[in-house]
C-alpha cells in the first residue's frame, strides 16, 4: 500500500463515519418533528461521540477483561472491514453478511462480558433476535439465483443491463429493508437496546468504550444503506448514493417515529413470518424458474 | 433396494420423532434418540459402497459421543436436583456366572488374536467385557486388582505403534508386510484394552 491508497482509505473511513453520524442525527431530528418536539440539532450524534470519547471512565470490577475492552474494538474492526470489502473492493455479498452476523457477537459479548444483569438480558435478547438473519440468507440466495453471482460488482453491472433488482425481487428488497429498520435506533425491532432493560448491551459500556461503539454504529449505518442501494438500486458510487441514503433515512425515521417498541416475542415472530415469506419466494424461484 | 431402505429409515426416524414428542420422561426420550441414530446409520449403509462403509464409523462414533455427553448431563442434573440415584440391587445368583466366564473369554481372546486388526480387537474386548461383567455381577471388586491408569497408558502406547506402522507404510513401501503387522498388532491391543476398560468403569 502506498500513501495515496492510505489517504484514500482514511478519506473513505472519515466520509463513512461523518455521513453515517449525520444521517443518524437526521433520523433523530425527523423522529422529533413527527412527535411534535423541536429535537436536537442534526450534528448531535457527532457531538455525542466526541463527548463520550473524552469522558472520564472507570471499569466495573465485574467485567471479564480483556473481552470487555476488545468488544468495542471488534465493533470497529467488523464494520471497517465491511466498509473496505463492500465499498472499496466490491467483494462477495456473503462475506459482508458474515460480518453483519459478527455484529450479533459484539452485542452478545458486550452484554455478557460486563457482568451486569441488564447487559446479560440484552445479550440473550440479541441471541433471540438472530431470527432476523434467516431472511438475510434467503435474500442472498434469491439474489444469487437471479444474477448467478454474489460479487457486488457483478450484481451492480447486472443491474445496469437489466434494470434495478428492486423491481424483480420486491419481497427480498422488503426483507432487507426490514433489516435496515431493525438496525436503526428506536426501531420497533430494537429489543436489544430496549429502554425496558436500561440500554441493553450498552449498559456497562460507557465513556471511551461507548464512543468507540458509536463510531462503529455510524459506519455500520452507512455500510448497510450503501449495501441496500447497491444491491437493489444498482448505484455503487458513494456520492450518487447520498440522496437515496437521505430518502431511505427519511422513510425509516417515519416508520420508527410512528411505531412502538414491540415485545421480544412479537418482534421475533414478525421476523420469522417475514423469513417464511422470503423462503417461500426462494423456493418458488428455485422450482419454477 | 436403495429407495426402500431410505424410505423405511425415514419412516422409522419420523415415528421415533413422534415418540420423543409424546414422551414425558427425559430418560426415555434419550433412549429413543438412539433409535433415530440407527435409522441414520441405515441410510448411510444403504449407499453400499466402500466410501459409505468408511462413513459409518465416524457417524457411529459421533452419535455415541453425543449420547454419552447428554447422559452425563442428565446424571449431573439429577445430582444437582438433590435426588438420590437408586442403586441397581437385584440378586443374580446363577451358576453359569461362576463357571463360564473364564472359558468363554479365553476362547474369544484366542480367536481375536488370530483375527487381529480392528475386528480382532473388538472380539477380544467382548471376551474381556464378558469376564468383567460376570465378576462384577457376583460382587467381586476388579478395580482394585487391575490398575485403570496402567491400562490407559498401555492402550496409548499401542496406539502409537499403530501410527508408526501407518507412517512406515508411506515412508518405506518396500517393507510393507512388517509395518502391516505393526499396525495390526497396535490396533488389536488398542481396541481391546480401550473397550475392555468399559467393564471396569464405575
Amino acid at each position, binding site marked *: *500500500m502506498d500513501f495515496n491508497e492510505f489517504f484514500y482509505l482514511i478519506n473513505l473511513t472519515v466520509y463513512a463515519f461523518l455521513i453515517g453520524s449525520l444521517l443518524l442525527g437526521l433520523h433523530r431530528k425527523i423522529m422529533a418533528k413527527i412527535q411534535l418536539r423541536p429535537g436536537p440539532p442534526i450534528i448531535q450524534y457527532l457531538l455525542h461521540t466526541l463527548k463520550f470519547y473524552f469522558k472520564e471512565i*472507570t*471499569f466495573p470490577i465485574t467485567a471479564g477483561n480483556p473481552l470487555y475492552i476488545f468488544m468495542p*474494538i471488534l465493533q470497529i474492526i467488523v464494520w471497517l472491514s465491511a466498509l*473496505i470489502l463492500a465499498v472499496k*473492493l466490491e467483494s462477495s455479498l456473503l462475506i459482508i453478511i458474515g460480518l453483519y452476523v459478527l455484529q450479533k457477537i459484539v452485542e452478545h459479548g458486550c452484554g455478557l462480558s460486563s457482568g451486569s444483569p441488564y447487559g446479560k438480558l440484552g445479550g440473550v435478547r440479541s441471541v433471540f433476535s438472530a431470527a432476523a438473519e434467516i431472511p438475510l440468507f434467503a435474500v442472498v440466495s434469491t439474489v444469487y439465483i437471479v444474477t448467478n453471482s454474489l460479487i457486488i460488482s457483478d450484481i451492480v453491472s447486472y443491474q445496469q443491463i437489466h434494470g434495478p433488482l428492486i423491481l424483480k425481487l420486491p419481497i427480498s428488497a422488503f426483507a432487507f429493508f426490514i433489516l435496515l429498520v431493525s438496525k436503526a435506533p428506536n426501531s420497533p425491532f430494537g429489543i436489544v437496546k430496549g429502554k425496558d432493560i436500561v440500554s441493553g448491551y450498552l449498559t456497562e459500556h460507557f465513556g471511551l468504550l461507548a464512543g468507540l461503539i458509536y463510531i462503529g454504529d455510524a459506519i455500520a449505518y452507512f455500510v448497510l444503506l450503501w449495501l441496500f442501494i447497491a444491491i437493489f438500486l444498482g448505484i455503487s458510487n458513494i456520492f450518487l448514493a447520498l440522496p437515496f441514503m437521505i430518502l431511505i433515512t427519511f422513510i425509516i425515521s417515519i416508520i420508527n417515529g410512528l411505531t412502538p417498541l414491540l415485545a421480544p416475542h412479537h418482534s421475533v415472530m414478525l421476523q420469522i413470518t417475514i423469513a417464511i415469506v422470503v423462503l417461500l419466494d426462494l423456493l418458488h424461484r428455485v422450482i419454477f424458474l | 433396494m436403495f429407495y426402500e431402505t431410505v424410505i423405511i429409515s425415514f419412516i422409522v426416524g419420523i415415528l421415533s420423532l413422534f415418540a420423543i414428542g409424546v414422551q414425558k420422561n427425559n430418560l426415555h426420550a434419550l433412549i429413543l434418540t438412539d433409535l433415530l441414530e440407527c435409522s441414520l446409520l441405515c441410510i448411510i449403509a444403504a449407499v453400499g459402497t466402500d466410501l459409505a462403509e468408511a462413513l459409518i464409523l465416524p457417524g457411529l462414533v459421533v452419535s455415541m459421543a453425543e449420547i454419552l455427553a447428554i447422559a452425563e448431563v442428565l446424571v449431573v442434573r439429577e445430582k444437582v436436583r438433590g435426588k438420590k440415584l437408586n442403586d441397581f440391587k437385584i440378586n443374580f445368583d446363577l451358576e453359569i456366572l461362576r463357571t463360564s466366564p473364564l472359558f468363554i473369554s479365553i476362547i474369544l481372546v484366542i480367536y481375536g488374536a488370530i483375527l487381529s486388526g480392528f475386528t480382532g480387537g473388538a472380539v477380544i474386548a467382548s471376551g474381556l467385557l464378558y469376564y468383567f461383567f460376570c465378576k462384577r455381577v457376583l460382587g467381586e471388586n476388579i478395580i482394585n486388582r487391575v490398575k485403570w491408569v496402567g491400562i490407559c497408558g498401555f492402550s496409548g502406547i499401542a496406539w502409537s505403534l499403530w501410527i508408526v506402522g501407518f507412517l512406515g507404510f508411506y515412508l518405506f513401501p518396500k517393507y510393507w508386510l512388517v509395518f502391516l503387522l505393526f499396525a495390526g498388532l497396535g490396533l488389536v491391543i488398542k481396541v481391546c484394552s480401550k473397550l475392555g476398560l468399559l467393564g471396569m468403569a464405575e
Partner: protein
Amino acid sequence: MDIEKKVGIVCLIIGMLSFILMFITNGLISYLFYILFVPNILYGVGIFIVPKTRRKKLGKIPFRGY
C-alpha cells in the same frame, strides 16, 4: 497501573506495528493491517487522554454497581 492502561499500551503497540506493516505489505494483507490500525490507535490514544477518574471506589459503578 491498572489493566485498562496495560491494554491501552498493547493496543498502541499493535497500532504502530500495523501502521508500519501496512506500507510494507501489499494487497489484502495491507487492508487487514489498516483495519487493525484504526481501532487500536483510537483506543490506545483515547485511554491516555481521558481525565483521571474522581470516583472514590474505583470499579464500583453507580448504576446497579457492585
